[in-house]
């Protein structure tokens, strides 16, 4: 019997339901643990500094990815920085249109060599521009869990 080019009726081939169950319990790691504890307990962003090339990684790493130095100098960086790029997202993970579009930005915190991605709030796309100043808005301390979601969003500021 020749191979069919396509199925014309759904019941011609028996379908088989299956799933790939993957559930994980991650660790934040040596540097990640310090980063999230600092956010939870102090509302402060930590980075790690490479004294060979002066890179400051936020979130911190225990190594410099460029020259492989061991990084042990953890430095506090600002909770404000400049908006490196932004977008307004209209489509969700399920492919459907979001009821409320969300604004996502890449933020370079003052004192950091790298950027982090997060939501932007208390603003509209029309208000945003490249290089604009934004600051982190944290959850109240008693609601924080030591997670990236302890930061609600970044908002434009005049600072």
């Amino acid at each position, binding site marked *: 019997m020749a191979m069919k080019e396509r199925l014309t009726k759904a019941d011609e081939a028996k379908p088989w339901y*299956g799933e790939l*169950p*993957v559930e994980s319990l991650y*660790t*934040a790691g*040596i540097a990640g643990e310090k980063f999230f504890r600092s956010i939870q307990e102090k509302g402060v962003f930590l980075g790690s500094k490479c004294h060979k090339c002066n890179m400051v990684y936020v979130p911190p790493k225990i190594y410099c990815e460029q020259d492989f130095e*061991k990084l042990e100098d953890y430095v506090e960086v600002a909770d404000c920085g400049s908006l490196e790029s932004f977008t307004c997202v209209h489509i969700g993970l399920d492919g459907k249109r979001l009821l409320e579009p969300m604004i996502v930005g890449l933020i370079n915190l003052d004192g950091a060599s790298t950027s982090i991605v997060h939501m932007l709030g208390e603003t509209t796309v029309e208000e945003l521009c490249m290089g604009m100043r934004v600051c982190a808005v944290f959850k109240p301390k008693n609601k924080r869990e030591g997670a990236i979601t302890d930061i609600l969003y970044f908002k434009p500021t005049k600072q």
Partner: protein
Amino acid sequence: MGNRVAIVGAGMTKFVRRAQETGKELCYEAAKMALDSCDMNLDQIDAVALGTAPDTFDGVHMKGEYLSDGAGAFGKPYMRSYVGGGTGVFSVAQGWYHIASGLMDTCLVICEEKMSSYRPHPQGAFLTIFDHTTERPLKPNLLWIFALEMNRYMSTYGLRKEDIALVAVKNKNNALDHPCAQIAKAVTVKDILNSEVLAWPVQRLDVSPVSDGAVALILTNETIARRVTNKPVWIEGVGWSLETSYWTNRDLCYPRYVEEAARMAYKMAGVTCPRQQIHVAEPYDPFDYKELHHMEGLMLCGKGEAPQMTVDGITQRDGELPVCPSGGLLGVGNPIAAAGLMKVAELFWQLRGEAGKRQIARKPKRGVAQAWGDLMQVGTVVVVGI
């Protein structure tokens, strides 16, 4: 064949049940240690060969890409290889052909596994390797394969569980001398026979533990090796081979895939009589009977003869042919890909006389390491010598 390739440095993290470090951080520790061991730095590395087993263990899709910065791959040719449990030994072959071909002068080989992330138990990660229509509805796990194999091996050669348990006793006791070992506890045959039954005849202490860890090696061409060290360990042969991926169609008593991989590696290394020319062996031992299986596939003895060699003490660290002097997966731990590479690292240390309390007194000059995996049909073999 090709340019000569040497191993000049090695590093490994402690193998543990659950590491606080991320997989990237484990990679960094092992890689840095390997570089430091031969006074080299990342600028002197031309390429990085990474090995790591299923993404599901770490719970990170595209794990090779995720681990790359910790593995020192920034700005370098980099590739992840993956042949399941065979990955650790295969990654050395991958590093070898980068240099043997003349394309690269140096290569960092690194293997990592963080199995503790998977919930509720890493065993569940294996469900999806089975056929999705004929097997998965039966909810199989890997123990099924091992129990069926072990039972067949025992009945074919008339073996008692006591004979096989001697392998676990030997390896777990050898691991007492390994500073990176996860399990440092002496056991007896009685302990093993009294441990809980997982799937008859496989019992808890017949099996290696679940582990997190990383191992790294530095490979170079001959010119650089001569400059970096006065004790290079040469990669004399590499081999890998695949049997039918349908596990039910295989000989349960004999790992032909190991024999084929070994023949490839031995031919390259000029080994014609393995029993005489191999002085130390690190066959893959996730289960005690698998060490025996693999010794036979590596042609270190005839079919069905490995148990008697063990009973006779030949495979002890002070025996004629030490097998798994490191403590193996059964003792040191089994972070899949990293465990395979640990075996090659052990040969490196043994041949250089740097194995500390584990050092084989007979001054071995040539060793073989082997791993096994995928749906248990791939064999990977490396022969090293001084």
